[in-house]
């Protein structure tokens, strides 16, 4: 049951909303929990047992660590001598609990996602048939680990109520494609069982419609073009291949951020606040900024649980202290960051999928970010000397477009069927650079001139909304202050443009959920 399906939008979600609202406050979170497990079961059938086992392990580990900490506090109060020793003693116990639970959960992830890949690397002969992974396992695992780490570091207290942990980890809007939430971020609203308000419902519904608009008018329309170009790239000239990469990037953004609109909108109806996953990523001036605006919750996860711990770890510090003595502070912190970034992007690439093209994708972005960091001061200096104002609107646009170019190339590899195919496509862009028969292909691969016009209009609408968001204007707030005729006209326009201009039915093939497979 995809979030874009009629089954979800017109049956599942309304049913949950109605049942949720008629039952008393205390039972409402349980309704969400039951709905989440039904949702999961429809997607992954009996793999729901994996989910239960995993949640149980997380829950127990959390409680155990809390118990150990309680005993430590008691011991600290009683014993006066050597507090440090007591602290390390209990810390080591928790470390063990943490490690065992991580291994248990990551083993699942490894089994479902990476076993085939590693078997193929080491040329193991007895290949296992590809097993179906539980839906959203990559997102779920990161979320579960964040809870464990936070409890370990005593950021907040472990949850005693098993049902609460179950709902947090299985919540149906976020289970398939994130956003990766933190327990302390959502725990306030997710268990509140607030009555659904008129405003909350309208805001949620509007957000969902905006997601459908992005997905059905743009992403689904581009799908055939992108599919053909990536499958049969040898048939096409360089500009068409590059256009394929551009279209894929647009498609990916519309699909993924559209899904997030539905996810966040669904939760908003129940008055549950889910963190944003995108902040106008295509306004980024460099790749590092892009990653702070694109798939935000994943970036934050890696920053908090991998980047800082690795860069401030004892081994890295030893290396950098040495470097600092030889060179200077800047070089040492650069090296410190580089080592940590390398680890982050190795994991990030692998997280996106078991395949060389994803690993390449990770290192590609690692290289771009690192180069950015190394040359940033030089460029600033350079601009300073030439008296170029980097905040000038034209310079800004040039920087943004330059960033797009790097993103397009990255996404080309991301969607290539293999690393080899990606390399050949990249090569083709330059070796077969001719506009011969460009027009013919542009207008025959599933898109006619009217499709382009509709997409252009839709993109302009999204662009304007993005600019408003960038200026911190909440579009729904300002719309709700307008008079009712204008307001409703906007809603009807939105709804009917989806129904009429949506790319569904004969001659279109909708995009399969992209991130759900990760």
């Amino acid at each position, binding site marked *: 049951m995809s979030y874009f399906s009629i089954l979800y939008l017109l049956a599942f979600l309304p049913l949950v909303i109605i049942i949720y609202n008629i039952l008393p406050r205390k039972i409402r979170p349980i309704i969400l929990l039951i709905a989440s497990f039904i949702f999961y079961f429809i997607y992954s059938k009996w793999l729901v047992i994996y989910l239960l086992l995993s949640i149980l392990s997380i829950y127990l580990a959390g409680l155990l660590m809390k118990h150990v900490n309680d005993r430590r506090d008691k011991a600290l109060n009683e014993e006066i001598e050597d507090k440090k020793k007591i602290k390390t003693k209990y810390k080591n116990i928790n470390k063990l609990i943490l490690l065992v639970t991580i291994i248990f959960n990551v083993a699942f992830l490894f089994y479902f996602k990476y076993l085939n890949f590693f078997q193929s690397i080491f040329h193991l002969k007895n290949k296992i048939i590809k097993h179906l992974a539980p839906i959203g396992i990559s997102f779920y695992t990161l979320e579960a680990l964040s809870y464990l780490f936070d409890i370990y570091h005593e950021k907040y207290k472990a949850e005693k109520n098993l049902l609460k942990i179950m709902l947090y980890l299985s919540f149906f809007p976020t289970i398939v494609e994130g956003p990766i939430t933190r327990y302390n971020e959502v725990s306030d609203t997710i268990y509140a069982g607030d009555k659904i308000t008129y405003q909350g419902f309208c805001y949620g519904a509007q957000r969902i419609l905006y997601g459908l608009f992005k997905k059905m008018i743009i992403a689904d329309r581009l799908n055939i073009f992108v599919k053909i170009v990536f499958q049969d790239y040898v048939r096409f000239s360089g500009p068409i291949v590059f256009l394929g990469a551009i279209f894929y990037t647009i498609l990916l953004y519309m699909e993924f951020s559209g899904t997030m609109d539905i996810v966040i909108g669904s939760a908003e109806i129940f008055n549950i606040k889910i963190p944003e996953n995108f902040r106008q990523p295509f306004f980024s001036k460099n790749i590092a900024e892009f990653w702070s605006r694109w798939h935000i919750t994943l970036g934050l996860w890696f920053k908090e649980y991998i*980047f800082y711990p690795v860069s401030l770890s004892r081994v890295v510090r030893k290396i950098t202290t040495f470097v600092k003595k030889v060179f200077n502070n800047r070089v040492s912190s*650069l090296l410190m960051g580089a080592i940590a970034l390398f680890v982050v992007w190795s994991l990030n690439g692998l997280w996106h999928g078991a395949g060389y093209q994803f690993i390449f994708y990770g290192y590609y972005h690692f290289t771009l970010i690192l180069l950015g960091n190394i040359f940033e001061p030089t460029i600033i200096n350079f601009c300073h000397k030439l008296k170029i104002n980097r905040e000038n609107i034209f310079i800004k646009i040039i920087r943004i477009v330059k960033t797009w170019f790097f993103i397009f190339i990255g996404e080309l590899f991301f969607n290539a069927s293999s690393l080899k195919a990606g390399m050949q496509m990249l090569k083709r862009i330059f070796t077969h650079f001719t506009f011969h028969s460009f027009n013919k292909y542009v207008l025959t691969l599933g898109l006619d001139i009217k499709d382009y016009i509709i997409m252009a209009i839709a993109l302009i609408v999204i662009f304007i909304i993005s600019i408003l968001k960038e200026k911190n204007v909440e579009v729904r707030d300002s719309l709700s202050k307008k008079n009712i005729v204008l307001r409703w006209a906007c809603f009807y326009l939105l709804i009917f443009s989806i129904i009429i201009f949506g790319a569904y039915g004969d001659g279109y093939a909708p995009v399969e959920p992209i991130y759900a497979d990760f």
Partner: protein
Amino acid sequence: MEKLIDIFNELNLDVDFMTCENLVDGRYLDSLTILSLITELEDTFDIEIPTVEIIPANFNSIKNIWALITRLKG
């Protein structure tokens, strides 16, 4: 506090760090700058900043950073 201001002066930020209230959220301090800041702070004030303390709230203003230093020293 003066030592802290010295450290900040060396960072060459695009913003008036004395008054800025969103150093991290406004992306004036990127993760690499935070790393060099942390090593400097640790050396200068002889403290150890654990990774759990590296959250935007602690680094968003020079006042908060000072508060963090005093807390960790005490």
